[in-house]
């Protein structure tokens, strides 16, 4: 049984690797490539965060500290390489960031992991504040307001790779992203990984089977620090600048959102969250000023309707899929999607009109239409669309519920639940 398991895993990771290699062929162009690079960094960062939250039950509000410190250290090391003070290939800079993050995970984790639950969350927040404040005080290391700039081509050209072109940086990120994913997945399959789950579920009981929960948390924190720092190093290489924002509270909050939106209960959840949130942040922000509002709303909707995140939607439908009952759900889903789209269109129209200051003759572009934000007709149409959308959507939800009620007995009798 074990070798088969190994083989499928190997095939799986190979497919992921090939997918990464192929990506730039599907999404060429500067914008796509830089977005893909950001996604790769975000994936490592979000996964490392979930080592704490999803796997160990530690809600940290300061995870960007490890990302940021790794990023700063990497910037300095790259600069030293540029000044010929030391020798270290750019390709392996993520190890520098990783070790930095790990070191700080070890040191700060010693303090933070003494407690779990709310105290841990508060302590992590306090430490994040402290580090963010130091970033503005210790300007030699953090560079003050301007941050630390660096030149990713400082290592010169090796085997034709200079890291000048973005495509080379993308492949560097993709490679380390794969390493990070495999590494972090592997951790979940070890005694420490399993005991992290046990400590998450019931720290007290873990003590009575011989494990010190504080030690388990501390080790997980150290490992999470490593991968966060690794992501930070890649960010330094990607942007060629690190500022205090990198380790600030906004950055720490962002990774919390990624993990929750993707789903913390599943290893793959944060990957989905990282990709989706990065896409939203760069794509949505080019279309609308109100993107943060939509983003916040999306977060709310997910927390309210699918607390397990996007990954949980898959888990939820697995039994129905295996019992071949998906086709019984789909019609109601189609109805909900159509009416939901209507509601969303109305909502977006209202928000965009609100954002347009609404002077008469103020033309706003809505879904490719030029409309007059000052005219009452536009407003009535938008609000009307929204209200009708709500009514229809709620009506459609009834069918979704009914469809689920209908298949539940069959799911139970077929034994998949």
């Amino acid at each position: 049984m074990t070798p088969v398991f190994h083989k499928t895993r190997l095939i799986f990771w190979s497919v992921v690797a090939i997918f990464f290699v192929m990506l730039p062929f599907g999404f060429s162009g500067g914008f796509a490539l830089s977005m893909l690079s950001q996604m790769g960094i975000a994936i490592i960062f979000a996964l490392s965060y979930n080592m704490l939250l999803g796997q160990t039950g530690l809600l940290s509000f300061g995870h960007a500290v490890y990302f940021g410190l790794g990023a700063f250290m990497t910037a300095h090391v790259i600069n030293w390489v540029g000044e010929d003070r030391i020798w270290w290939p750019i390709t392996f800079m993520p190890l520098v960031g990783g070790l930095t993050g790990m070191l700080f995970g070890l040191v700060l984790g010693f303090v933070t992991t003494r407690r779990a639950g709310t105290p841990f969350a508060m302590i992590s927040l306090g430490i994040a504040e402290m580090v963010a404040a130091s970033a503005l005080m210790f300007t030699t290391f953090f560079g003050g307001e301007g941050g630390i700039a660096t030149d990713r081509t400082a290592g010169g050209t090796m085997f034709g790779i200079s890291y000048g072109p973005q495509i080379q940086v993308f492949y560097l990120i993709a490679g380390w992203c794969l390493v990070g994913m495999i590494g972090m997945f592997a951790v979940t399959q070890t005694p420490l990984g399993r005991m992290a789950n046990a400590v998450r579920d019931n720290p007290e009981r873990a003590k009575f089977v011989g494990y010190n929960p504080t030690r388990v948390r501390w080790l997980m924190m150290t490992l999470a620090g490593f991968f966060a720092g690794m992501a930070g190093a890649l960010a330094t290489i990607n942007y060629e600048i690190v500022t205090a924002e990198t380790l600030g509270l906004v950055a720490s909050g962002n990774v919390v959102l990624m993990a929750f939106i993707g789903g913390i209960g599943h290893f793959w959840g944060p990957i989905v969250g990282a990709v989706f949130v990065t896409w939203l942040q760069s794509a949505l922000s080019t279309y609308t000023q109100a993107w943060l509002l939509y983003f916040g709303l999306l977060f709310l909707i997910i927390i309210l309707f699918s607390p397990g995140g996007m990954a949980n939607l898959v888990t939820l439908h697995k039994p129905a899929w295996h019992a071949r009952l998906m086709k019984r759900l789909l019609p109601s889903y189609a109805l909900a999607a159509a009416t939901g789209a209507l509601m969303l269109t109305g909502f977006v129209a209202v928000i965009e009109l609100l954002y347009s200051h609404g002077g008469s003759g103020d033309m706003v572009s809505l879904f490719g239409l030029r409309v007059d934000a000052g005219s009452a007709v536009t407003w009535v149409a938008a609000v009307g669309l929204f209200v009708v959308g709500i009514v229809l959507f709620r009506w459609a939800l009834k069918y979704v519920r009914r469809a689920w009620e209908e298949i539940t007995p069959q799911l139970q009798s077929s034994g998949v639940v």
Partner: protein
Amino acid sequence: MSAATTNAAEKALVSLSLKDVHKSFGRTEIINGVSLDIADGERHAVIGPNGAGKSTLFNLVSGRFPVSSGRIELRGEDITNLEPHVINRKGLSRSFQITNIFPRMTVYENVRCAVLWSLGYKYSFWHRVGGLRDAAQRTEEIVELIGMQERRERLAGVLTYAEQRALEIGVTIATGADVILLDEPTAGMSHSETDEAVELIRKVTAGKTLIMVEHDMGVVFNLADRISVLVYGEVIATGTPAQIRGNKAVQEAYLGTEQD
């Protein structure tokens, strides 16, 4: 010389020893000078009315609470006020009156978590847990012993009450300890479930030292070699089931007149 040897031999026969153990919460003294020696391989029942301090006594022995004064020894070694995980590693394992397992992990994983430390895997993040033959074998054995092969992939949180109680015992013995403390293992069970639980306890504690808190007198008299009666934090009697049955003080304080 010979006196010392005898002394050592006697000590070796005592698994667990409590010496004038006291415990207060604030001003209230809950455990009031308990001294107790439990022999190697003995099955010892602790009985007493609700609130007598039985669970508290287990909490002291297993390191969950510090004692106020007194001394606790495991095979002659002082374990007073050590951390629970340290005590567990020395070979003492306990179950809880209120089920205390890992609800979001499967039955199999619950048991495996309890097996890992004693097999020496500690905090390893360089072993693949699925590839550990010895851990798998021990886990399978215990899952089978508690009769849960068919439930092994279920999440512990969704098991029935009786199944959770069985898993609680499974997790307790999986640590490989040879001193086992069970706190009301049959509480809340039906007659047939209780009978099954008694058989299970007999099976899994064979060759080990067992100390159990139990309310069901049928179970107590059936299973125990010796019984201690705890009332208001004091042991008012210790003896064989026959001795306890015949003890006047016990009858007045606890058993009352009704007996089975």
